[in-house]
């Protein structure tokens, strides 16, 4: 029933296909062709879904905070002032002050840059490596598929956060190593999605047609098949940005990677943790909520990102 219904609801033009002379022009030329340039399409996606609009708005704010944060905050995020230790939120200190008298608001805003940087770099790395591995494995199959598949299985055989801990512990306690560790544990997701999406399209009619048009295998893969794997990859990217930022904050929470006094959300929550039981909630809550909002933003952006790269969403 869905078939009939769907056809009648979404593709009214198929039922109007009229018998016309073979060389004559189809009757339905009146419908305006909506090629829609890319920008118009992005605006359309943003307008059509308020959740997407809100998430992109939040993302914009985060980007501004990351770029301009250090120049616009009211206090030096590293300057301690023992006169104003552990003060609750007030008009002077919107998010209160910590045990050294540092302004929590300034620290939270300035931390945006480091947290976003770690998440975006790590996800970019794993997207590039993972999708290349996965596409090649999905397209060519054979020994390359087997070997890369086993490697990915091995990575996935570790609880991922535990593997990240192990990698950072082994390579050394630095921000770069946090990025590498986060990238490595995210590679399997892209590799698997890319492999699956490429594999089901390997013998699709349009891929065969591209070969008949004179495209070699690499061109078929790169220009015809891979772009079609992008919509689900976009959803994966948004989920992974969330995970990456959680992962990095989690690592610094247990004392790996970023070190005090550098402002970073995970480390600020860790430092504030001991004051929770005595009621000084603002130390941990504000960085924690920022972290949560950031992850939420990334997660909500997924559908919007997918719709933006999916031409089937253009009407």
């Amino acid at each position, binding site marked *: 029933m869905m078939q009939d*219904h769907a056809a009648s*609801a979404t593709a009214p033009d198929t039922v109007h296909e009229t*018998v016309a002379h*073979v060389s004559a022009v*189809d009757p*339905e030329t009146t419908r305006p062709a909506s090629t829609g340039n890319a920008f118009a399409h992005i605006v359309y996606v943003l307008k059509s879904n308020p959740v997407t609009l809100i998430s992109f708005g939040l993302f914009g704010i985060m980007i501004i905070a990351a770029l301009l944060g250090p120049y616009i905050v009211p206090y030096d995020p590293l300057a301690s002032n023992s006169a104003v230790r552990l003060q609750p939120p007030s008009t002077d200190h919107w998010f209160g002050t910590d045990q050294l008298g540092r302004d929590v608001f300034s620290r939270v805003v300035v931390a945006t840059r480091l947290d976003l940087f770690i998440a975006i770099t790590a996800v970019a790395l794993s997207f590039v490596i993972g999708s290349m591995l996965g596409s090649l494995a999905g397209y060519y199959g054979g020994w390359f598929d087997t070997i890369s598949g086993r490697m990915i299985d091995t990575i996935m055989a570790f609880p991922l956060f535990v593997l990240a801990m192990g990698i950072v512990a082994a390579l050394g306690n630095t921000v770069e190593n946090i990025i590498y560790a986060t990238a490595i544990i995210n590679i399997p997701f892209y590799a698997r999605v890319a492999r699956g999406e490429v594999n089901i399209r390997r013998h699709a*009619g*349009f891929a065969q047609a591209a070969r008949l*048009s004179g495209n*070699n295998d690499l061109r078929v893969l790169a220009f015809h098949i891979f772009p079609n794997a992008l919509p689900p990859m976009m959803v994966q990217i948004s989920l992974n940005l969330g995970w990456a930022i959680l992962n990095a904050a989690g690592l610094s929470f247990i004392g790996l990677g970023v070190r005090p006094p550098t402002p970073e959300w995970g480390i600020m929550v860790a430092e504030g943790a001991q004051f929770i039981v005595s009621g000084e909630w603002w130390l941990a809550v504000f960085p924690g909520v920022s972290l949560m909002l950031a992850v939420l933003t990334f997660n909500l952006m997924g559908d919007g990102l997918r719709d933006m790269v999916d031409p089937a969403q253009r009407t």
Partner: protein
Amino acid sequence: MEDATTMRDKSILGSAPQPALVQVDRLGVSFATRNGTVQAVSNVSFQVAKGETLGIVGESGSGKSVTSYALMRILDRAGRISSGDMTFSGIDLVNADERTMRDLRGREISMIFQNPRMALNPIRRVGDQISDVLRQHAQAVGSNARVKSIELLKIVKIRDAEARYNAYPFELSGGMCQRIVIALALACRPRLLIADEPTTGLDVTTQKTVMELIVELTHERNMSTILITHDLGLASSYCDRIIVMKDGAIVEAGETSELFASPKHAYTRKLIRATPRLDSTVRELLLEDLATAAKPTKAARATSDVPILQVTSLTKSFAPEIAKRSLWLEKLIRSKSIKPPEAPLAIDDISFSIPAGGSVGLVGESGCGKSTTSSIIMRLLEPTVGSVKLNGVELTDIPIKSFARSTYRAQLQMVFQDPTDSLNPRFTARRVIEDPIRMLGSDEDRKCIEERVEQLAERVGLPVDLLSRFPHQLSGGQKARVGIARAIALSPKLLILDEPTAALDVSVQAIVLNLLHDLRADFGMSYLFVSHDLNVVRLLCDDVIVMRAGRIVEQGNASEVLASPQSPYTQTLIDAIPHPPSLHAA
């Protein structure tokens, strides 16, 4: 069910001599969608008498399936019966409560579906699925259900029924699964059977046996049947009366013979003409005025003696997937338990040729090797043994990897089966058509390419302003035209047509077949037409080749093969396809 019988007795008071079992009056069904309410069915009225077979015929989107789901009240959540009355043997189906409906379904009204494999629960034994129905309607209790289920399996002619009781759907063929679905539907001896495209997706020969089984069982039990189909041929062979639906409404209804002899509505006429009959020509598929307006069919070009394509002793075996993919460890444990099966030959020693300017049809059921053959000729697949010569040049000497850029690539092109699957969803129509020109054409100039694409679009009847659309913004027929324009963009010498109309409605099929017919003459191409339907192939081809299980069983002149097939298999194939009565006879 006592209520039902007493109510049925009351309805005899009606004036009709034979009381209708099913009475549908001004039925309307609407669906709530994101873009508001869509009326899928409106003002549909019909009745089905006891023992009668009613056909509901229409193309995709006509609302024929929705009507039957409404009758059983199994519309999905978004669907709603918005108006009208429906009664089944006196019971008001529109207002009956869910309990009453549940008792009716399966017990009084049953349904069988297309895609029999999908219609069965994949992780439950087929016998248990029949037992579930028997138990639900209190036709059996305890172990009795098993015995009764096995009986039913025997009734639908499943051999070795006791063992098959324990089979899962994935272990059975499509035809077998459809028999199980029939057994499930007939388990409680219902009075009405609704068959929704019961043979779509099955092989032609299986289609016939399944249809005959349905007819035999329903006649035996004096059941009424509603047959829902897109295939006028099928409807004409099995139905007493036919209603034709379009856009959710009935355009015409009548006795089958009358409807075919003197169709009143223009749409019915169009459908009847568009359905290939045994003696129709490709032009006759179009309506009278269009057919006469079309250019007269040109006489086929004088075919030269040199064949454009010469295939000799082609053989292809697929190594079993298991052996290729698994790791040595898995092989190690496997080798102890099972030996790898003998590699079956996908195609076995095939030879044929296509004369220059000629057109040859390659016909067979799924799995006969016809697609493997066309892939090898297209140089997408390496043959195990054999030779493929295009214009006297051995193609198998050119490695597949470098064939993409070879000069022969442009001479060999293909039109694909599914117009949706064969167009890149991310490319506009223009980009689809210009891709081969950019990759293999001699034109470098953007302007030239643009003009060439527009010429091609015009030639295949695609409005130039549609070129900027993405595939999902085009109708099925328009997508087919884009695919054809791409295939002829480089003026190939040989065009392989791989079931080019299988995914299209008949009226669109008629147009596309005519377009292909004209293009061959205009461009001086040769065709290899791959299809399961001898009757469609006949419309475009001078010669046909019939394949079965990787071998050629018969080849020769198309009309001769159809008129007097030499092989019993060809005869079976011809008989299996139901045809509407001949136009000329009427």
